[in-house]
């Protein structure tokens, strides 16, 4: 036990002395959140959409103004002509535009805002349908009432992104933690010295895991806190499930990291491989782009990635996504299972001095 405590202390010192590692583990996710928070806050939000319009004809003008005022958008702004409207769209003073010629409704979009245009086109479709119907003096015979069935109320897009970023942080640090550290120890020949002591290989892996686990947990707390404080994001966090999942998923991804440690010899290669895997998963796991937008074959790949499930559980424990209890427990158990299987299995192969 004393030797394990010494090993643990050495790991703590090693980690706290590595300023770069500290920065990337604790502060880099915060930089991410700040950057994306400012870039994405309010993106594609229909209720805050600013709609510019030009009335080239007085025909049905009052009716159109009435429809626009009831469209449920953030603001409507009048422009004297198309040129000024286009300039406002290009400068992002308005989100999209509408021109009423007297015969047709022309909706103008900025092609650069492709991710948001789908939402804007839905709003435009609603405005056009309502105006068309009322212009003919008709009322819909079939009405549809949307009822939100989820237990969780609607959240902004960034509310869904932030737990995804937390999951990505856990994954990338987990993958790199063991692989990078072990390869570094091998390269610096520290492992050569440790291995001739009575230290058990698993004890070293556990010591590394404990330190990274605590740091990872703190990192997710800081990131979540920054999101809630600066961007006023609302999360209803189930702390018990949150901590349990962060612990199990960090251990699970560290287990996957031991496989990387087995495959590469240099710390830079371990970092690169971990980075490559994490980056590929980030794009396919629906962290920034909804999985539903992807083609069928990518959706299938996405369903097989650990990060997809990590992001969904993080959304569930932060209260922005519904998830059944059984799905939560199965996912958590799967990550814990990965750690339980991979750590002892890989320990004897990866805690070895570098072959020369």
């Amino acid at each position, binding site marked *: 036990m004393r030797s394990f405590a010494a090993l643990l202390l050495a790991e703590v010192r090693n980690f706290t002395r590595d300023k770069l590692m500290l920065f990337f583990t604790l502060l880099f996710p915060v930089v991410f959140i700040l950057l994306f928070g400012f870039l994405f806050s309010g993106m594609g939000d229909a209720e805050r959409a600013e709609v510019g319009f030009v009335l080239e004809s007085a025909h049905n003008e009052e009716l159109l103004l009435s429809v626009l005022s009831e469209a449920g958008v953030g603001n409507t702004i009048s422009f004297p002509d198309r040129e000024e409207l286009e300039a406002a769209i290009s400068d992002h003073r308005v989100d999209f535009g509408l021109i009423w010629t007297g015969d047709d409704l*022309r909706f103008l979009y900025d092609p650069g805002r492709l991710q948001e245009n789908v939402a804007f086109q839905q709003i435009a479709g609603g405005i056009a349908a309502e105006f068309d119907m009322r212009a003919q003096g008709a009322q819909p*015979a079939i009405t549809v009432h949307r009822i939100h*069935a989820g237990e969780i109320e609607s959240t902004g897009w960034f509310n869904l992104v932030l737990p995804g970023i937390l999951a990505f942080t856990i994954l990338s640090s987990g993958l790199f933690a063991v692989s990078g550290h072990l390869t570094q120890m091998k390269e610096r020949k520290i492992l050569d010295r440790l291995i001739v002591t009575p230290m058990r290989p698993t004890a070293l892996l556990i010591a590394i895991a404990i330190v990274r686990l605590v740091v990872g947990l703190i990192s997710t707390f800081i990131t979540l806190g920054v999101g809630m404080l600066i961007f006023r994001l609302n999360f209803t966090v189930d702390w018990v499930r949150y901590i349990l999942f962060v612990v199990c998923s960090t251990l699970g991804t560290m287990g996957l990291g031991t496989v990387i440690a087995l495959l590469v010899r240099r710390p830079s290669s371990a970092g690169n491989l971990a980075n490559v895997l994490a980056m590929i998963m980030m794009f396919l796991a629906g962290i920034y782009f909804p999985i539903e937008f992807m083609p069928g074959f990518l959706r299938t790949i996405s369903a097989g990635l650990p990060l997809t499930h990590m992001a969904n559980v993080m959304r569930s424990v932060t209260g922005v996504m519904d998830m059944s209890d059984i799905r939560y427990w199965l996912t958590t158990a799967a990550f814990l299972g990965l750690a339980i299987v991979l750590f002892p299995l890989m320990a004897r192969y990866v805690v070895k001095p570098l072959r020369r």
Partner: protein
Amino acid sequence: MKGIFALARAHVIAGIREKDTLFWFLVFPLFLLTILTLIFGRLGQDPEIHFTIALIDREAASSDAAFSPSAIVRELFSSLTLSETPGERPLFSLRTPASTDALDAFQEKEIEQLRRGNRAAVLVIPPGFDRNVLQSLQAGGQSPQPSVEAGLQLYMSQTSVASETAAAIIEQILAGLDRNLLAQMGLYDEAASIDVVTEWTQQEQADSEVPYVNYVLPSIVLMGFFTTGLFGVPGTILYNREGKVLRQYWVTPLSVRQYLLGFGVGHVIFCAIQFALVLLLGRLAFGATLQFSSWHTVLLLILASATFLAFGFLITSFARSANGGMAIANILNMPMMFLSGMFFPIVGLPIFLMILVYANPVTYVLEALRQSVGIQAGTLMPWPWPVLVPLLWILVCSAVAVRRLRWDVGS
């Protein structure tokens, strides 16, 4: 001269042989172009889009009307479970209660499935729906809005994009059906309906949408150049310095200036290879139509490559070790890319971030390139700033590198 080209050749070959370099500088831009185009290039036109929804007709049991709108709704959604093209998935998979199912229990179960993400929407036809629709039609479309209870109930989840999308599609389908019914009753004239036209700003032909691949291609090209400069330059020079490879160069007649020239030529060739591959993929696989052949576009590409090369030297001159260089590059990478409008529009940023946007050389070369290939009308700053700012960065970076960069370990 021969030495310079030999160095350039060595630089390119080393880059291609190194697996990490090959992935980040050649494979990753291609991967990103593929992923982004597959996702965003198909928005709203995905033939593979498929939703599992439930339809519960609570009217069927109570209605004995000869004209039954609820039956029409049922038939309409049943028809959408059939694929138009053999081998293709239909728009919907429809779950309906069996004759032995209790409707309340079935509805409850399906709404629970919706909450768990296993259904995209649940559409309920309430009792009295037929009577209400008929009353509305008989009143000549002038009746007051039917009550909430009489309308179709569309259960969806606001926290699921699939559910939001499915709900929007279902509403469009039902709006179409509504117009048909009104038209049949002479209450709505399809011929007199108001035309809706979709147009795009900054286009020569306003009604032609820019394919997403055209929009993203200049970004991917510059991202490739940027990462090659940001990571490639410090990576190569600092690892070579640490591994004492540079020291071996200095015992040959090669001067630092010749080395730099060879390195620069190699960097530009690497960028050209990267550009050619990205362009080929964009054109052949995704139908990009952009032309990069005008002289000012070519000059802009060279300017971009040179700017990021200089930026790489700036990082190299501040880093004490190769790992330190990579760390600085990693720290700068994301902010510089995302604060240039490369992948997301720069809208409503606070002033301190806007200062970074204006100081960022990537912003200028990106905007100038987009304008040059015809997918952007104006730039953040008027000409000649989009060229002057990157040139200024090249000058500053070069001056700092000349003063600070160490070419040997311990020098």
